[in-house]
């Protein structure tokens, strides 16, 4: 889950890392008051979860509080890549000597967090790493032992930084490592980290990403920041169809039937079993099919969940048929899914034989499932028909229908 800049800065501040005397607001008049309090040139920054703020006109400089107010008014009304800003940040325009970079991310291969430090900040760190590799220090650290001062010194010194800058940077890096670990972040980045004329350091911007799975253990922090439980912070807002999918899933605790993503095609998909859904979605597209949705079903859902999901997909405008397909299942009962999807057709007044392009779920209780499907004339396949072949048949049928 990504944080807005104003939230990320608050997290940095709480960790004991110096930040500027910024203010966050959703009101242009208040932006003026913040600018007056700061008393000097300011930067007005749009608070959106999208890159390219500067290019889109979401970052502006002001010399007076009145100018800050005018900029805030414009920026608050400015959509960036389809995102309406949450508010604006009014920040002192700091005079700094040099920009640095400090960040922590996970390395999935080494299975450890890695501290990345560079005396060249303010721009794309990936680019710096490529063009000036000696200016980017990396250091993996333990998941069990705390990140030590010596580790900070080593990574800073490896980039050629010495003198008082090195000593002043050490606590910033150790605090950043600590906040990364303690808050279950997947990314914690200060960029730029500015060295001011008096030699002190201050975080001018920060990016924080918290692991969704860990949200539950950071309730107090999220509450303090005003992040609602229902805020998904996905790359795009969920559609009504996707929310309806979640509602089907939350009906009861048995199995998974939901996690749907909406597309514009005519073939509805009730597919699943983890990697099976990725495989089947690819297969449908490979044969020229046009999926109406991606979805997951598995883990032994109840009849009503399977029915709810199939009804949702069948009711989506533009959907001609649905394909019900999975890889070989072991703990999902085939007969239960069969019952659910047939009930969905019947309750919508549709003919299962016509609406279900194919049913390919081999596995537990399949004989019972196949009997039910036979009774309603639905085409089904066992494990001797590959996932790709099943997808091909479904696409062929919908082609014949349109």
């Amino acid at each position: 889950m990504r944080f807005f800049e104003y939230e990320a800065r608050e997290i940095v501040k709480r960790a004991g890392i110096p930040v500027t005397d910024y203010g966050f607001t959703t009101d242009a008049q208040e932006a003026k008051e913040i600018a007056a309090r700061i008393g000097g040139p300011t930067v007005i920054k749009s608070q959106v979860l999208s890159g390219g703020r500067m290019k889109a006109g979401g970052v502006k400089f002001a010399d007076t509080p009145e100018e800050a107010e005018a900029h805030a008014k414009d920026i608050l009304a400015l959509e960036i890549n389809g995102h309406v800003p949450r508010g604006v940040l009014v920040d002192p325009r700091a005079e700094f000597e040099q920009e640095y970079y400090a960040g922590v991310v996970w390395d999935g291969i080494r299975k450890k967090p890695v501290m990345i430090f560079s005396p060249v900040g303010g721009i794309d760190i990936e680019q710096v790493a490529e063009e000036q590799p000696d200016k980017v220090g990396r250091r993996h650290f333990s998941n069990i032992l705390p990140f030590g001062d010596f580790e900070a010194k080593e990574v800073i010194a490896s980039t050629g930084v010495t003198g008082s800058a090195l000593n002043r940077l050490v606590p910033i890096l150790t605090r950043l490592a600590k906040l990364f670990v303690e808050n279950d972040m997947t990314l914690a980045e200060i960029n730029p980290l500015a060295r001011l004329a008096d030699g002190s350091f201050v975080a001018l911007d920060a990016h924080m990403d918290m692991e969704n799975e860990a949200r539950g253990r950071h309730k107090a922090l999220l509450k303090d920041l005003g992040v609602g439980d229902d805020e998904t912070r996905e790359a795009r807002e969920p559609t009504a169809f996707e929310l309806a999918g979640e509602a089907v899933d939350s009906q009861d605790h048995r199995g998974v039937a939901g996690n749907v993503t909406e597309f514009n095609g005519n073939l509805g998909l009730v597919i699943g079993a983890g990697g099976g859904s990725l495989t089947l979605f690819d297969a449908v597209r490979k044969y020229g099919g046009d999926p109406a949705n991606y979805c997951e079903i598995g883990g032994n859902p109840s009849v009503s969940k399977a029915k709810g999901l199939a009804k949702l997909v069948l009711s989506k405008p533009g959907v001609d048929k649905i394909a019900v397909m999975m890889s070989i299942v072991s703990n999902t009962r085939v007969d239960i899914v069969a019952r659910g999807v047939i009930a969905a057709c019947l309750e919508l007044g549709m003919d299962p034989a016509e609406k279900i392009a194919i049913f390919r779920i081999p596995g537990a209780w399949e004989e019972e499932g196949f009997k039910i499907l036979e009774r309603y004339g639905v085409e089904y396949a066992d494990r001797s028909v590959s996932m790709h072949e099943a997808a091909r048949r479904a696409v062929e049928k919908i082609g014949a229908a349109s």
Partner: protein
Amino acid sequence: MSILVDETTTFIVQGITGREAVNLTRECLDYGKGAKVVGGVTPGRLGREVHGVPVFDTVQQAVAHHGAPIDGSVVTVPPAFTKDAVFEAIENGIKTIVIVTERIPRRDVAQMVELAALRGARIIGPNCLGIIVPDVIKMGGIGGPAKDAAKAYSPGPIGVISRSGGMTTEMSSTLTAAGLGQSTAVSIGGDAIIGQSYAELMPLFEADEQTQGIVIYTEPGGRMEAELARWVTENDSRLPIVAFMAGRFMDEMPGMSFGHAGTIVEGKEDTATEKIARLAEAGITVAEEISEIPDIMKAKIAERSVSA
């Protein structure tokens, strides 16, 4: 032979009294030569039995009751308690730990993996279905009930490593239907950080005489495939590898996440296209469809035996 487990392997089930764990225990006892499930652990349930398996409050009690070191544990406790359960297993001398639980934050996984490395233990998963040696033993829910597992898996020369639990069975079933049995199939889990990656399991398969080829299932996200490609190149592996890559469509939808937590598209290096190219450079064939895997594998094995 096999890797990780064989017919002599003893293991416990942590969280044994949960509904899924009760089924899993039954399945393991019934399959192949019958797993040696020597105990179960659920705090506060000392003295109960699950399908004849005695239940203890702690792993320490289970080890004391068994009277000898226990080889493995299948951990199926809620995410909030998994780390402690795994630490408990490791500190009680258990060397092979299969974590079934889903949705464990990666910090916890990384801590478990680090402690395991310090103690010479090995973690499979989390969010995985475990390990199966066809007709011999299964450790975990892999393949489902014994009679269903027997339909999909057969003994033979192919090692299977899969990031998706369900696809482990689908691919093995396809191999079985084509007359290619499996030496060991391992569901390694699809999360961003897992106990054992493809490359980390390769030395075990490499040392296993029964294994003549490897089939892997993979997805976008992470750098495990690049790691495998590098390992194969650097170690001059004797084993031909055929891969199947699902989720190719995700390349066209950057920033969206689908399915497994580990398949979140994080960058260009993690895309299906990029991974396919890297695997191909290392001589690993990426099949377009699962049904093509057996023929590609047979051709590759024949090629190696001619050149050997």
